[in-house]
């Protein structure tokens, strides 16, 4: 303690010498970089404040918890009685995301294990690059694929009248989420120290035994985090879901039912509403709901992943 305070004292006494142009530039740079550093916090708070601000009128006046969350009647433009119930929209989002996860989780975890543990050299490099490129395909292109390729294919294969439904959007969303989940899961597997694998192999375990008994248990939190981030991705996806679900308000009873998602509702209706109207504010309230849910998902995923790093 005494030596550090002495150093500080010496540094202080020298300060008058060091306050040249470079010193001020250095301090200015530090302040600017700090402002950049806190920008993410400012934006997150800003997003919350602005969407809450715009949705506030509805939350205070028209909002009833029972109607909003428990009614499936989303009729914002009804002439008789406007109703704002998001149950069917939540069901739409949940069914599509659920199916997408059924598609994406096994394939992306399988692919992650293969890339991280079995593939090597050029194969590994090639697979990693492919996954990265898959993740880059824009969501509107996926939506177009759902509309132009999957739609006729589903009608043809299953003899149903409409091919824009839970099945279509679920598969599209699954294909979209899989590369992201694969690369996060692969990172989680790579974070398991090599000495764990070496110890197990030295005991005579085969590659698969090492993976199954050692690597997977050690990486399970990271893998869970990857799955959660995938769920968050599916939940918040807009364009692909807007174009491939069929966009009709429905609580689905089979995968061939058309549904409508929360995100897609905002995207489809916001352009037609007057700023400040109840409908407009109700759409912002859906936005608040989406923001809160994804916030919780992201925080949980981060918490789970951090948990293992500390332990």
């Amino acid at each position, binding site marked *: 303690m005494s030596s550090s305070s002495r150093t500080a004292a010496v540094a202080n006494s020298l300060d008058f010498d060091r306050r040249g142009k470079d010193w001020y530039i250095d301090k200015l740079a530090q302040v600017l970089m700090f402002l950049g550093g806190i920008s993410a916090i400012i934006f997150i708070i800003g997003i919350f404040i602005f969407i809450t601000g715009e949705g506030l009128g509805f939350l205070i006046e028209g909002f009833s918890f029972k109607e909003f969350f428990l009614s499936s009647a989303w009729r914002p433009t009804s002439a008789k009685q406007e109703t704002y119930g998001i149950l069917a929209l939540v069901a739409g989002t949940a069914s599509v995301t659920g199916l997408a996860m059924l598609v994406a989780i096994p394939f992306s975890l399988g692919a992650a294990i293969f890339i991280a543990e079995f593939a090597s050299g050029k194969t590994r490099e090639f697979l990693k690059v492919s996954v990265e490129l898959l993740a*880059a395909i824009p969501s509107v292109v996926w939506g177009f694929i759902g509309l132009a390729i999957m739609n006729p294919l589903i009608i043809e294969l299953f003899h149903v009248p409409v091919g824009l439904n839970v099945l279509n959007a679920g598969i599209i969303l699954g294909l979209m989420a899989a590369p992201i989940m694969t690369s996060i899961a692969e990172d989680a597997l790579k974070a398991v120290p090599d000495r764990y694998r070496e110890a197990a192999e030295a005991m005579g375990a085969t590659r698969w035994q090492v993976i199954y008994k050692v690597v997977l248990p050690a990486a399970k939190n990271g893998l869970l985090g990857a799955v959660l981030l995938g769920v968050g991705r599916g939940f918040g996806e807009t364009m692909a879901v807007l174009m491939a679900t069929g966009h009709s308000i429905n609580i689905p009873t089979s995968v061939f039912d058309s549904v409508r998602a929360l995100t897609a509702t905002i995207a489809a209706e916001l352009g037609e509403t007057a700023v400040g109207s109840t409908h407009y504010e109700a759409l912002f309230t859906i936005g608040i709901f989406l923001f809160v849910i994804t916030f919780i998902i992201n925080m949980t995923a981060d918490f789970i992943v951090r948990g293992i790093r500390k332990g």
Partner: protein
Amino acid sequence: MFSASELNHRNQRIQSLFRFFLGGMTVTLMVPVVIILTVLIIKGGPAISFEFLFTNPTNGMTAGGIFPALLGTICLVLVALIASVPLGIGAAIYLSEYAPDNAFTRIINLAIINLAGVPSIVHALFGLGAFVIFFKFGTSILAASLTLAILTLPVVIVATRESLQAVPMAFREACWNMGATRWQTIRRVVLPNAITGILTGVILEVSRTAGETAPIMFTGAAFFLPLLPQSVFDQTMALSLHLFVVSTQVPNMPEHLPYGVALVLICLVLMMNSLSIALRMYLRGKKKW
């Protein structure tokens, strides 16, 4: 003398089985995408020509080209880059070079993770509420680009932070020992050594920005405009929104046209990503330390 027992053989078989199975899953993941790309190229390829890229849409968008949309996307990306690249690099420098390891830094990191996870439609709501209405930019290139800039900020921050942290600590220490200030060290030693890595992040951001649709729908991109934008306060067409419009909103659309738009968009995005990947590999080969 060692010889493999029955158990060893069985374990080996199980291993081969799983290896085959997991490899199969990996391939299955790629196959649909290859098929889709092939279909896009076969159906969209014939639509693409010099005229398609450089003329206006005609006949209620059912004929003609995509020039205003292409130009609009370039404008949106450029303005978004001007806003987000300095900010993102600043944030990354702070996190990598200045930030102490404490709770506040942890909050910044959480904010970045959350910013990356906020649904794009919520970003759109924010852009509408903040830039279009509150700051009175109107539906304009400026409002749309700022929305995109905030959406893609985490991409730049994460890529830049990684490449800054890859610069060995010894480089900085050597510089400090010569009496350089922190900023001089960052400017003369850390940034020059990290610049290629930062560039990869920026290219990734370009690709991401060009493909986003939802955030620009209500903040500055228009379905159809007869004139090209004259300033950042004008609306513009954009390639991603144009794909949405021609594939869902316009009746009697000839089939090849949306395929052509989709192909142009996907080529643009994949080219940017490939460039970024190539640059990263080149960098890895060149690394001096």
